[in-house]
């Protein structure tokens, strides 16, 4: 059973639909016991990092997430909260990935939010089995994690940033695999196959 963590950060429907299309069984939950017992954990989320951390703390899930030893995939805000710190609301995060999250600067014509399809490069993980460097994935975000030793994919929008991160059993993507067409579905399938 795959647990999709519900911590009141936006609609989970697109992640649910993506898992259904892959034929995976899942449960949407905020129950620590269900999350601990799950074979895989998905931490989606759209919105504000400060609110996301506040909701995780309120639900008593920060230590639960930290203690998981099975594969965890954070998507967008779900990945950002696993970094050290976010500039959004000057928020201390869970601190699994050894990097900080900073805002894009809208200068020299750079559009913020970074919205649309961009390429991923320097792919270095089983998460990208069968995915070629230069493949397009879908992004929509205004904050992004810096490059670090946990970076397993990069993208460029006014400079390189971490498109994906990995530390031990924890994975994160800044892009939305659930909205990234066939490439995204392959990445989710790779995660489910871990």
């Amino acid at each position, binding site marked *: 059973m795959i647990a999709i963590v519900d911590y009141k950060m*936006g609609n989970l429907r697109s992640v649910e639909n993506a898992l*259904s299309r892959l034929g995976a069984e899942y449960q949407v939950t905020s129950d620590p016991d269900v999350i601990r017992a799950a074979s895989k954990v998905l931490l989606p989320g759209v*919105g504000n990092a400060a609110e996301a951390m506040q909701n995780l703390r309120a639900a008593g899930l920060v230590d639960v997430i930290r203690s998981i030893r099975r594969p965890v995939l954070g998507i967008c805000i779900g990945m950002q909260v696993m970094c050290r710190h976010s500039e959004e609301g000057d928020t201390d995060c869970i601190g699994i990935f050894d990097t900080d999250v900073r805002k894009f600067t809208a200068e020299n014509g750079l*559009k913020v*939010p970074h919205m649309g399809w*961009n390429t991923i490069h320097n792919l270095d993980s089983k998460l990208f089995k069968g995915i070629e460097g230069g493949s397009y994935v879908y992004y*929509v975000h205004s904050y992004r994690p810096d490059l670090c030793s946990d970076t397993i994919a990069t993208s460029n*929008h006014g400079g390189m940033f971490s498109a994906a991160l990995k530390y031990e059993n924890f994975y994160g993507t800044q892009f939305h695999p659930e909205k990234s067409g066939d490439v995204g579905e392959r990445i989710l399938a790779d995660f489910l196959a871990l």
Partner: protein
Amino acid sequence: MVAKRIIPCLDVKGGRTVKGVNFVGLADVGDPVELGARYAADGADELVYLDISATCEERATFSSLVERIADRINIPFTVGGGIASLDTAARLLDAGADKISVNSAAIADPGLISAIAGRYGSQFVVVAIDAKLAEDGRWMATTHGGRRLTDRELFAWAHEAQERGAGEILLTSMEHDGVCQGYPCDLYREFCATLDIPVIASGGAGSIDDIADVLTLGAADAALAASIFHYGTYTVREVKEALSAKGITVRL
């Protein structure tokens, strides 16, 4: 680098596609889900579904349609048409829409943009503007499909929308919409340069060159088109391959 997006727009009435190209192997062109899936498979970067229902009975079918679209389509999609309240936006979000677009209702009540963006985030809110050149030479926002001129100057209104939390602007020139003779690229270039958020150009595409022009000369981030896809003039893939051959970055 972010790719320029090509976005087919489907008009829906009473849960059925009003216009639609007769794809080979697709028996029912009237089903918006099947048509959207076909566009997605053909390389569309996003889809826009516009509810043009005239009656409440027709409109009631829209959220269940949005659920079916969300189940099936693995790329982002926007829904619009008559969204005038936070409740309606919430219902469409719950049904699985990635974004909603607001138009006339936002002009009547700009607080609607702030309310929806404040609750669900800027990424969820596209503000559509139908602009018309007024007699005094200024571009003005219109409502009711371009029939009513408002007192809102295009650039000022777009800036207000951005400040209120719009994540994107969908700009249609009512002078050019539906005539398939190209976009007003000078207008788009000036418009895009003054905004931080992405701009989708809409209305006017009659050829691949028109689309190429608005994405380069016009500096638009995306082009939305209906007629050229619905009438089968070009497929999405043909358009994207031709744009790529012209050196424009697209997702292929």
